[in-house]
């Protein structure tokens, strides 16, 4: 099939971007969206033009590298699908497809469809970890975790940090990403000792990065390729409220007291 692409072209972060119309000819319906872009790029290279810059890595929907908004919808807007898992059979011959980078102040465009998502890394550095001494791997079941908690934490941990939630949000809010990361650790016994510190710090970092505020519309959960639920945002809001009420969030618990607390397990 033949398609007309309107692709966002931007030389670098400081340049002005624009939508360029590129014809995509002889596209196979079994191709993934990224394979289609590969084919288009090969043609562009042969023609001596600059190929479209886009991000990809695993191409099996688990790494979160691919990031582009297709017709205004991050990852194309199909349920639980990343751009790499979106196939060309969803499009018809003669379609015009608009391809843009993630739109958010906190994700500045580096080139064409590639945005700088290091704001997410800094949020993780602010509290998205547990402080325990490393060493040999523990026995898998030495800390009992109930089935329900384990499953819920796993649902949150499914977040691949692609940033589609931010990209889909009309306010450019990162609440779903931060909520998933906060909830994943705050739900589990290993993450509990630093619960208050974590939520407080990660929310503070999120605000500093210039993300917007949540207006509870739900676009983020709708577009999330890992179908992270809005309930995690509620959990983060709850944890945040409790953390600032307790006032304990200012100090990071020291590793010794965390170890001591964990040694008193089982909790659940």
């Amino acid at each position, binding site marked *: 099939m033949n398609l007309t692409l*309107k692709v966002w072209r931007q030389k670098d972060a400081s340049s002005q971007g624009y*939508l360029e119309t590129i014809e995509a000819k002889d596209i196979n319906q079994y191709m993934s969206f990224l394979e289609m872009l590969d084919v288009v790029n090969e043609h562009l290279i042969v023609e001596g033009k600059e190929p479209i810059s886009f991000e990809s890595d695993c191409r099996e929907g688990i790494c979160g590298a691919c990031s582009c*908004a297709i*017709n*205004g*919808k991050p990852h194309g*807007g199909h349920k639980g699908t990343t751009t790499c898992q979106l196939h060309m059979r969803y499009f018809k011959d003669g379609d015009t497809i*608009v391809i*843009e980078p993630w*739109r*958010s*102040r*906190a994700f500045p465009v580096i080139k064409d469809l590639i945005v700088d998502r290091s704001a997410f890394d800094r949020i993780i550095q602010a509290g998205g970890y547990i402080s325990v001494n490393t060493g040999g791997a523990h026995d898998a079941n030495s800390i009992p975790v109930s089935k329900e908690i384990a499953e819920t934490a796993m649902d949150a941990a499914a977040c691949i940090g692609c940033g589609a939630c931010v990209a*889909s*949000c*009309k*306010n*450019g*809010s990162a*609440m779903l990403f931060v909520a998933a990361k906060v909830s994943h650790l705050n739900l589990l016994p290993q993450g509990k000792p630093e619960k208050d510190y974590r939520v*407080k710090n990660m*929310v*503070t970092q*999120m*605000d500093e990065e*210039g*993300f*917007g*505020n*949540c*207006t*509870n*519309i*739900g*676009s983020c*959960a*709708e*577009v999330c390729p890992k179908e992270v*639920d*809005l*309930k995690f*945002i*509620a*959990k*983060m*809001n*709850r*944890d*945040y*409220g409790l953390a*600032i*009420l307790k*006032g304990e969030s*200012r100090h990071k618990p020291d590793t010794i007291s965390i170890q001591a607390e964990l040694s008193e397990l089982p909790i659940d």
Partner: protein
Amino acid sequence: MSVIKNLYYSSVGKKYIMAISGLCLLTFVIGHSLGNLQVFMGKETINRYAHFLQSNKEILWLVRIFLFTMLVLHLWTSIRLWFENRAARPIGYFGNPTPMSSTFASRNMMFMGIVLGCFLVYHILHYTVQVSDINLIGKDFSGAEFQIKGQRDVYKMMINGFSHPLVSLFYILGVGGLCFHISHGAHSLFQSVGINSQYYHRILEKAATILAIILFIGYVSIPVSVLTGILK
């Protein structure tokens, strides 16, 4: 003090302020509706109720100051949030697609709030401050004509107040804005303070819509009844 600082400056804190002040204002809106509907129970009932409210000056002013504070908090925080949200996405997508899974109300909370705010100013000047220049019928609600045995005849004031179609139309418009605002706000506030889960998320959404519809019918029934002559 750090609690207040965190509430004021953080994104989640600002949403707490919006939710809690919104809830206080919503409680008033429900109470005000129930109070007003007593107009259908006759002249004596509504006048007795009005006198009960007006005669307890200490409580009346306490409640007024409290509600005003909540309103200012709600307004001020919403303006801050609105500007921050606009700044967080300087460039939108091509063709401005409608945000996924959004509703008319959730997209237009600010607009509905502005409609409601304009109406609120008029409404207070109309019935509370009783500025006779704006009621379009040229009667002075604070005059002797609207008094019975030294007490205010609120029943007569309501009938006269809504007798002008333009006044009633603006009232219906204002209440319409309010109810759209509530249809999103009344469930969104639970999410903002973290009292939500996947089990009752949909129930809360439906409950908010039903509440908004009930409030709309309740409020609008009064001017409609006056204009159609059911209330005389």
